[in-house]
């Protein structure tokens, strides 16, 4: 029960952090000044992005609290019912690495919630807030590396750096898919895309291309650190999950490549085929679903002993089922 809850909490936390980062990465890198110069349509797009950010932060807050509760129970060896009644939660929060990272994350989530609320209430302040929220989103995303398997490895700073880059790249690409879908819904009203909209799509395409490169390199580094051998891919649960993730990633790449082709050569600022635009929207939706599945696997991987772990102990018991 607590295992399933933990996988859910981790997955929601990671997905929410990716989405929060993706929203503002899309705004800053892909949308840029196009959104500001689009008048009321631009303001409406901004408002929808801020709403999306608000929901991602709410999801991040609740999943963070659930995750913390489960970790307190695991570390203290107490039941879920007793975990928050004693002193254990204070010890976890104040005396462990996880607790210190959680203090930072909860602080960032609280601050970001306040800023997003201000942005929703005062549309003139949104542009100034976007940059601050983008930085907060990156802090929220990167801090996940400090409580992952990567934080525990001895090969530092390679482990942390690889994981942080992996998270940022995933935020830029996977996290940006939902904002892209919203953007396409706005531009899709008319068959004619217009030069600015096409410019945004091309910038997102270029951003995604760079993110894929970073994901591949950092993914290889993480695999080297956490798996260690080809055999471990086929003989451990961690390896099997990683293979599932790689398979989904390959399909994602296929959709991404097709979309890139459409954006670079198929779309026309004055006369784009409605079918092509519909296909682009469908592909983005499928990509987002696949991205969510990948995140769920990542949440599961985080609760699973890495394939390389624990070969030297003669006498040990791993208590993952009752812990994290």
């Amino acid at each position: 029960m607590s295992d399933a809850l933990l996988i859910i909490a981790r997955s929601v936390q990671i997905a929410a952090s990716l989405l929060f980062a993706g929203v503002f990465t899309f705004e800053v890198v892909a949308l840029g000044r196009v959104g500001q110069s689009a008048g009321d349509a631009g303001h409406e797009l901004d408002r929808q992005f801020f709403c999306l950010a608000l929901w991602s932060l709410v999801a991040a807050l609740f999943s963070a609290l659930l995750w913390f509760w489960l970790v307190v129970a695991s570390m203290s060896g107490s039941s879920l019912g007793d975990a928050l009644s004693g002193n254990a939660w204070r010890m976890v929060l104040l005396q462990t690495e996880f607790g210190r990272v959680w203090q930072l994350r909860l602080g960032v989530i609280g601050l970001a919630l306040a800023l997003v609320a201000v942005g929703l209430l005062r549309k003139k302040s949104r542009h100034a807030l976007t940059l601050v929220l983008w930085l907060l989103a990156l802090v929220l995303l990167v801090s996940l590396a400090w409580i992952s398997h990567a934080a525990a490895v001895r090969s530092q700073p390679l482990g942390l750096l690889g994981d942080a880059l992996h998270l940022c790249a995933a935020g830029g690409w996977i996290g940006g898919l939902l904002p892209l879908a919203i953007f396409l819904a706005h531009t899709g009203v008319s068959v004619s895309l217009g030069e600015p909209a096409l410019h945004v799509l091309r910038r997102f395409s270029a951003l995604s291309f760079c993110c894929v490169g970073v994901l591949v390199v950092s993914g290889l580094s993480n695999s080297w650190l956490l798996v260690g051998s080809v055999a471990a891919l086929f003989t451990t649960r961690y390896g099997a999950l990683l293979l599932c993730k790689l398979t989904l990633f390959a399909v994602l790449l296929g959709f991404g490549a097709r979309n890139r082709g459409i954006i670079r050569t198929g779309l026309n600022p004055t006369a784009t085929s409605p079918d092509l635009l519909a296909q682009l929207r469908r592909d983005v939706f499928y990509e987002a679903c696949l991205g969510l599945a990948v995140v769920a696997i990542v949440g599961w991987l985080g609760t699973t002993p890495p394939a390389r772990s624990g070969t030297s102990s003669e006498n040990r018991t791993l208590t993952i089922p009752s812990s994290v």
Partner: protein
Amino acid sequence: MRRSLAFLFFLVLAGAARLEAHAFLQQAEPGVGSTLQASPNEIKIWFTEKVEPAFSKIQVFAASGQEVDKRDVHVDRADPALLQVSLPQLAAGTYKVVWRVVSVDTHVTEGSFSFHVR
């Protein structure tokens, strides 16, 4: 280009890594299953990664089941992967060392081993 990437991927996965992401026992003093001529002053366990001091412990039990360590478990200041506990003068017999540690990535591991004093 694709072949190069695939080859690189294979090389990376085939290469040896020296990383552990859960804290497992790497080395212990006294050694696992060892027989000592005299009572040890302390138990030292080196783990494969650094552990959280607040939630990590070592207990030493005599054959009767009584806990005999001095209950002063602490992580070494210079090496955060080394956990130790002091012992009083132990009589001849078999002792069981039980450990439970939390690694910095929040995973809990536990285990036990025995040693003998002549």
